[in-house]
């Protein structure tokens, strides 16, 4: 659990600066920071589209950029998507906690003090030798514009719901409420009622992408910082290949859940991974 909301853009940022996919990046959500570079660095920004400037001059996203000590990187107003990833060659130097460099804010573990970053924070980077300039050859996926279709497999408790209820989930748009974050997105849309006689289930293990239905009938889409166990029935599960798309949704965006088969889900994941690995030359 934990980790990037959009593993594809996170991986891409790392590949652009010559890192392995699992090096620590900075996840920027909704609005961007101003970063002052202390030491020569090669960086790349991927994911949600922001206008970027380095010392006031425009720089492109999705490519390796060199910066020198004292340079200032500024993010403008977000255009599309919800989360960007900043990678530096060698990765941000945060300690491994329980085998991960991710931050889990609820438990205060990992990252810099187990919390979101604040003005004045210093992030350590490694000084590495000169790197090859890498550019994006092809985008591994398109950012959502206002919303996204997310492919789903039937959830383990789908059979408990009325057929019409399952069809409703797949026919209407569900919108992210403001109460949406790394733990999960609370969605608003046509209610998906529990069949009569349903009660909470005994807690079972959850997965990112699980669509849970509480007694209110308003679905919750679980994301990377979700509680690892839960007792609400799971009606559908977003496929792994589409989790990066889900991670790029912001409150107010819509989701259309589209059924697919397990074979299609695995093929889509293979395609997504291949697209990521061939995205950078």
């Amino acid at each position, binding site marked *: 659990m934990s980790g990037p909301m959009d593993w594809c853009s996170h991986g891409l940022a790392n590949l652009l600066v010559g890192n392995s996919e699992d090096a620590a990046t900075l996840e920027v959500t909704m609005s961007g920071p101003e970063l002052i570079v202390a030491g020569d660095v090669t960086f790349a920004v991927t994911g949600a589209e922001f206008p970027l400037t380095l010392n006031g001059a425009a720089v492109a996203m999705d490519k390796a950029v060199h910066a020198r000590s004292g340079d200032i990187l500024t993010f403008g107003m977000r255009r599309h998507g919800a989360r960007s990833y900043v990678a530096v060659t060698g990765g941000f130097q945060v300690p491994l906690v329980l085998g991960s460099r991710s931050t889990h804010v609820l*438990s205060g573990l990992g990252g810099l003090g187990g919390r979101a970053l604040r003005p004045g924070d210093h992030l350590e980077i490694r000084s590495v030798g000169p790197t090859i300039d890498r550019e994006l050859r092809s985008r591994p996926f398109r950012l959502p514009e206002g919303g996204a279709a997310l492919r789903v497999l039937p959830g383990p408790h789908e059979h408990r719901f009325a057929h019409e209820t399952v069809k409703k989930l797949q026919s209407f748009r569900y919108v992210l409420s403001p109460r949406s974050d790394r733990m999960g997105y609370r969605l608003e849309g046509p209610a998906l009622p529990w069949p009569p006689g349903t009660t909470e289930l005994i807690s079972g293990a959850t997965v990112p992408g699980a669509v849970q239905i509480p007694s209110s009938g308003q679905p919750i889409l679980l994301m990377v910082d979700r*509680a*690892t166990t839960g007792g609400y029935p799971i009606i559908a599960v*977003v496929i792994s290949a589409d989790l990066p798309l889900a991670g790029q949704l912001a409150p107010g965006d819509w989701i259309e859940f589209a059924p697919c088969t397990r074979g299609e889900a695995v093929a889509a*994941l293979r395609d997504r991974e291949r697209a990521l690995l061939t995205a950078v030359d």
Partner: protein
Amino acid sequence: MTGRVIDVGDACVTLELDALVEPDINDACLSIADQVARAKLSGVRDIVPTYHTVAVYVNPLVANREAVADMLTRAAASDGIARPPSAARHEIPVCYGGEFGPDLDDVARFARCTAEDVVRLHSEGIYRVYMMGFLPGFAYLGKVDERIAMGRHETPRMRVAAGSIALAGSQTGVYPMESPGGWRVIGRTWMRPFDLQRPEPSLFRAGDTVRFVPMSRASYLDALTRRA
């Protein structure tokens, strides 16, 4: 034991036994999880036993889903279900009620008894750790005496204090850190269920036994000072 194998999305294969909170079923889950771990199947990222299921998280591009499902089915059917080797016993000191147990009176009303009775019934219980989940170090303990087994709040609290002892239906537990939570808070302990300074950060493990021991407010505050 018989169970059914289900997929939870494309990256998790789960074995489901009967949906009950029972020691035998939980023992089977712990044993099956252990067998799957020892098999070292390729592409397995994590194995999580719960009350009545064993969830195997996989990389779908590496793991062979049929091999995992097969392993789960065979492990469920095999004889020789054993308790996990190191089942530790824990005694957790608790200051019940007052500012530490804002829901104690509600539970007493629900149970139609006094707050003292609730404390007695809760602290007389010998609980098993059925599974770990929800937060680092959080242990799902059961079963609570049904007389005091009050269900969750409809709307969870935004903040439950670290060390809070709480219950939800037949489950009880200790919040390892401050977090939102919907369980009924009846007391607090100074002990830390999760501490990164320990070689094993989590105090509890699935299969362990836990008892709660009431302590006075004065003793609690004293212990808190000494802990710091």
